[in-house]
């Protein structure tokens, strides 16, 4: 009895130790990657042709004011010390003060980020809901018209400039048909009615029970979200198709078919089950891609998210804001990557 307990424990213990070690290794590599990310943004900030002191004191400041601010910013210290200062600031969540509006960059980012999150989340949901079934059917009925449609959808998605498609969408659905709300998150009439809880207007208005605001927000959100959804659909359906093809050619599928299992069960209960982990990885990556893809979309739709924030700051040469935004998007990107990596290791026994 004792013996069998022992082996049972070992069976659970050994993979757990391996997992912990693997996690530790992942954590270390994450730390190095993040350090690298911060170093790159730091270097970008230092090679800027803009004088950060002049940006603060203005051109008519005296030499002594200039020198004081120069020292205050730590620019008289060696580069490596400056980097450590920067590192310390970022770790404390301090991205400096925006030269454009004199507010802390971190606060601004916190304010605009939910708008991007709302957009990207709805986009990825659309991509998954449509893309996964499309990919599965394209694989099962390979060479059929569904497969051809899926192929064209993906090809067009990979080739279309997103900002242009957004403009055309606005022209057709807002300008001509009037089916959706125009640029911005809400009509001016509905702004600031519901209390801000999450910063995502759909969620906030649902929490407040104000369905008029919800409908209006949705009519503004649907077009940019479909646009992003289309891009993730192109990627997700392509990947789903190739994962499914790999499974469907495996021997266990033939066995299941020979045993007389229904096609539905073969596809969804056998083959699809085995691609779920890979699929979640793909979805996480596509989510990360949407956060980035939202930069151009946000410009087109005057969406006050992080993409608009970075570009506005860029054109106004507000370097703290640009770097702060870049770091945040980079961090989210890395975290999503790691999340999908870990998921893979935990749930897919083949990856061990």
């Amino acid at each position, binding site marked *: 009895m004792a013996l069998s307990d022992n082996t049972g424990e070992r069976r659970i213990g050994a993979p757990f130790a391996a997992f912990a070690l693997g996690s530790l290794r992942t954590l270390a*590599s994450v730390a190095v990657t993040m350090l690298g*990310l911060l170093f790159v943004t730091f270097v970008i900030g230092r090679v*800027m042709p803009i004088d950060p002191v002049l940006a603060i004191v203005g051109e008519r400041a005296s030499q002594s004011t200039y020198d004081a601010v120069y020292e205050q910013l730590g620019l008289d210290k060696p580069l490596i010390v400056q980097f450590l200062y920067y590192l310390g600031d970022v770790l404390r969540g301090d991205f400096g003060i925006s030269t454009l509006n004199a507010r802390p960059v971190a606060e601004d980012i916190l304010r605009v980020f939910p708008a991007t999150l709302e957009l990207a989340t709805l986009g990825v949901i659309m991509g998954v809901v449509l893309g996964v079934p499309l990919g599965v059917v394209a694989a099962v009925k390979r060479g059929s018209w569904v497969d051809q449609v899926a192929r064209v959808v993906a090809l067009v998605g990979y080739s279309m*400039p997103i900002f242009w498609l957004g403009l055309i969408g606005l022209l057709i659905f807002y300008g001509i048909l009037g089916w959706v709300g125009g640029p911005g998150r809400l009509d001016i009439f509905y702004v600031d009615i519901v209390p801000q809880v999450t910063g995502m207007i759909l969620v906030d208005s649902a929490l407040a029970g104000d369905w008029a605001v919800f409908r209006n927000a949705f009519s503004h959100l649907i077009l940019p979200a479909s646009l992003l959804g289309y891009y993730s659909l192109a990627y997700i359906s392509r990947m789903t198709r190739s994962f499914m093809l790999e499974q469907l050619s495996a021997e266990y599928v033939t066995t299941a078919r020979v045993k007389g299992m229904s096609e539905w069960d073969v596809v969804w209960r056998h083959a699809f089950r085995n691609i779920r982990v890979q699929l979640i990885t793909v979805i996480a990556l596509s989510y990360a891609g949407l956060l980035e893809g939202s*930069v*151009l979309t946000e*410009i087109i739709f005057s969406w006050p998210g992080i993409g608009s924030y970075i570009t506005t700051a*860029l054109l106004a040469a507000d370097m703290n804001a640009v770097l702060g935004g870049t770091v945040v998007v*980079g961090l989210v990107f890395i975290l999503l990557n790691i999340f999908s990596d870990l998921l893979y290791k935990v749930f897919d026994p083949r990856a061990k």
Partner: protein
Amino acid sequence: MSDQTLRQWLLSDTPTSRRHARMAAFYKGWLSFRGNSMAMVGLGILVLLGLVALFAPLLAPYSPFDQDLANRLKPLGTEGHILGTDSLGRDTLSRLIYGSRITLYIVALVALIAPIAGLLIGTIAGYVGGWTDAVLMRITDIFLAFPRLVLALAFVAALGAGIENAVLAISLTAWPPYARIARAETLTIRSSDFISAIKLQGAGPLRIITKHIWPLCISSLIVRVTLDMAGIILAAAGLGFLGLGAQPPSPEWGAMISEGRRFILDHWWVATMPGLAIFTVSLAFNLLGDGLRDVLDPKDSGQ
């Protein structure tokens, strides 16, 4: 040599020289590529684009910079301005034709810089191994972890707007996948027998990398480059659209969309035409890339 015998010479099973074998392999690849009609369409569009760019001054009815305020925002099909005019009365067709030069220029430069940088880093990491490998690959991972467009934006912010800086920014974000591919190829090649044989003959690492490893990495890099071209075009157009790439009055397609954006509701064609041009060219690169992948790299053709 007549056509028939040239064909037989190329398809011969027993090549008589190294050059013969190489040309025969190339010809067989071409034959299978030619059977892929979508890829041929892509190739056709790109050849056409090259010709348009080359003969732009002959083909364009007007100068891309000449303003004619009396004829601004003319619709499609206007006499003398088949694709209409923009807000300053410049002929859209002429601007598109000259814009093809800018697009090709950007694509060609990025397609040179990024894969060469990736090839260098990847082969060195793969061949030398050890600490060099660890450090180089960690740097590659850091760049890979960055969202590309945002990184390019930050680089352009630091370097200043302009075509050359846009090219540099896109290249800086595009090299890591090439480095990974080159490293993976190097790792498999480096332990093969023929490399040991060359080593015994006294070849140094430089000679092995440049003469024996690089040539074998080329084909997978070419496939990857072709598939990346569409992304490069879209990234360059995006930077142009944001006002960070080519500067006005340059007829860069992304910048043209940005100019037309203000009139999208009343004069839709101004922004639509350059968008169609971008779409056509990146679609052509995608089609060509798919076809090349089937010929050069049958193992991952996704079939």
